[in-house]
């Protein structure tokens, strides 16, 4: 559950009994902020949520004070790296370090609250970050770069429609036999899955 708008924090089911008032949510690293609540289930990647909100606050940064101008830029760079599967474990320490600094040192409310989604997801959903970095895996299957497209041989009728629609020629096979996707060539555009009439193509987390 994301609360307080783009610079709010993320809470989990264990916080369901927390009162929705300024002092209570603050204890858990969130803010009432805009008063908005975004409820998400397991189909949302929390690393991507942090990246999305950071891209918003980074764009909103006026550029006057150094912590916000430079800090949000670097935090966004790290988050982009992680969702693209290029993250390192040391990125998490850097992210934490910058986020804490920006929170304490920025000039205005935007900068001071910009790192909250990062800090709260790092705390509550750290395992998702680690999965993205170590296992190159996004459990919500939403981080495009980490998706792996597979063809279920039992469902595949060998019609060849997927191979024809693939823009990069990553799918090969013989008609009436099961087709195969080359993971090296696949650009994860989802066109094949969209085109398959038999739901034989699936995304592996």
């Amino acid at each position: 559950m994301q609360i307080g708008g783009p610079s709010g924090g993320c809470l989990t089911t264990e916080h369901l009994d927390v009162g929705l008032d300024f002092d209570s949510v603050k204890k858990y690293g969130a803010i009432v902020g805009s008063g908005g609540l975004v409820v998400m289930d397991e189909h949302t990647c929390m690393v991507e949520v942090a990246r999305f909100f950071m891209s918003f606050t980074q764009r909103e940064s006026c550029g006057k004070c150094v912590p916000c101008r430079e800090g949000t830029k670097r935090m966004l760079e790290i988050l982009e790296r992680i969702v693209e599967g290029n993250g390192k474990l040391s990125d998490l320490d850097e992210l934490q370090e910058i986020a804490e600094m920006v929170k304490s040192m920025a000039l205005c409310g935007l900068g001071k609250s910009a790192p909250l989604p990062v800090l709260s997801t790092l705390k509550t959903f750290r395992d998702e970050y680690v999965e993205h970095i170590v296992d190159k895996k996004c459990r919500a299957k939403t981080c495009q770069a980490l998706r792996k497209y597979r063809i279920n041989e039992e469902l595949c009728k060998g019609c060849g429609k997927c191979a024809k629609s693939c823009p990069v020629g990553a799918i090969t096979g013989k008609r009436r036999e099961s087709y195969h996707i080359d993971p090296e060539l696949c650009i994860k555009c989802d066109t094949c899955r969209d085109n398959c009439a038999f739901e034989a193509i699936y995304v592996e987390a």
Partner: protein
Amino acid sequence: MGTMTIDGRKVEFTNEKNVLSVIRKAGINLPTLCYHSEVSTFGACRLCTVEDDRGRTFASCSEEPRDGMVIYTNTGRIKKYRRLIVELLLAAHCRDCTTCVKNGECVLQGLAARMNISTVRFENTRELRPLDTSSPALVRDPNKCILCGDCVRACEEIQGVGALGFAFRGTDAMVMPAFNKPIAETDCVNCGQCRVYCPTGAISIKTNMDEVWDALADPDTRVVAQVAPAVRVAVGDAFGLPAGRSVMGKIVTMLHRLGFDEVYDTTFSADLTIMEETKEFLERVGQGKNLPLLTSCCPAWVKFVHDQYPEFIPNISTCRSPQEMFSAVIKEHFKGYEKNQGKKTVVVSIMPCTAKKMEILRPDSVNNGERNTDVVLTTTELIRMIRTSGIDFAELPPESSDMPFGLGSGGGVIFGVTGGVTEAVLRRLVDKHDKESLDAIAQCGVRGEEGIKEFTVDYKGIPINVCVVSGLANARTVMERVKNGEANYQIIEVMACRQGCIMGGGQPVKPGARTKEERTRGLYNADSVMVIKKADENPTIAALYEGLLKGKEHELLHNTIPW
């Protein structure tokens, strides 16, 4: 008034305008990149952030001191955060330190050393931007800009020009003139105060050292130097000598050793300026025309009038500045074969000023189809040339300037400090030269560090209202009053830089030092030991009027075309 606790020590404060000043007064030099007491508080670098007893963090430059405050300046996390801020700034900054003009003097570089930053973990992803080299005096390198805004505030608040501003936002933010015009096409007066305030190499002096080295190496060239009054009090401390002490004698020796054929003193032509300007002033007072007379020694101020108050152009004195008068006289002197022996004459003027680099390019800085001043070197460039030579400046014996243009009066020396021109004119106007008369002039209100000084003196029964201004923002205030008829002056002396040329845009920058007091004292002391105090008592001036200048006063000493 009150007491606060800083790092466990009780510190009293009186009228300090912010917590940062109290902390610095307590002997803790918190780092800052965007704070200068002379301009408004910006609060952008966040380096001066401190922590209070409740763990709250705030920028000490932007907080008023309150009685009973308990603050900590160097807690573990604050130190860590400060270091990270500097690292992030370095990450977005050109790091070619070894070839940067600011190498060794850069505030950012100094902070990196102070914070012990040995690696920068982030890549510089900023797009490379072109340099602005359009100005004759200054170079802007946006790749070295850290967006502290010091130049923007100096230009706007101290100089009242506002040639620079912020554009765009976030990481795209940049400092630039409006519409990203080349700086030469703006109202920039080339005063160089932006460069004085810039903590990095983003704004630097456009250097002309190579031209001078080339001329010095050429056996067919006679290289002649003139050294401005304010230079002599700003060189010594770069070589370990006491700050503000006049080292003119050593400068003369050094220039000779570097290969200059003749070394003259600009105080000589300051005396010429006094003679001409006093004459012009008395004429105007007699005719009641084009008053107030506006002084013309400072090229930044003259450009300011042309850009901002064109209706007052006729009020500007037609006298050339001391630099231009001198160069015209030198070129005239070495014109004949008897004097030049077939050698080309190159006049190098050594100035505390960046705007002088613009002045020599004026269409009116020309005689006989030739530019009078060939090169302007700022004090900063002179110091660099001395360092390049490897000659031990501090140990040099002093020499006197060369004749026939080496002798100036005390009135000429004090041209380098605000009020100096007026004081020298007043000395010229009184007949006496005893100590009492000179002290009376010094105490009439002409001295002092205020930006605007007004006083009235009596000249043969005529009251003369004088206004002495330094800093162009102050000049704007005065000009608005004159324009609206709220003030009635007969003469207004303006120096574009606060405190006058001693704090000029070409002078070496010493952050935090008591530079202006030391340099001011240095020039007044230099005046005190001069035998001749008044321009009209300088025998070489009288000889010049009888000789070289006869019939050529107007041609060599005055401007004829406006800019």
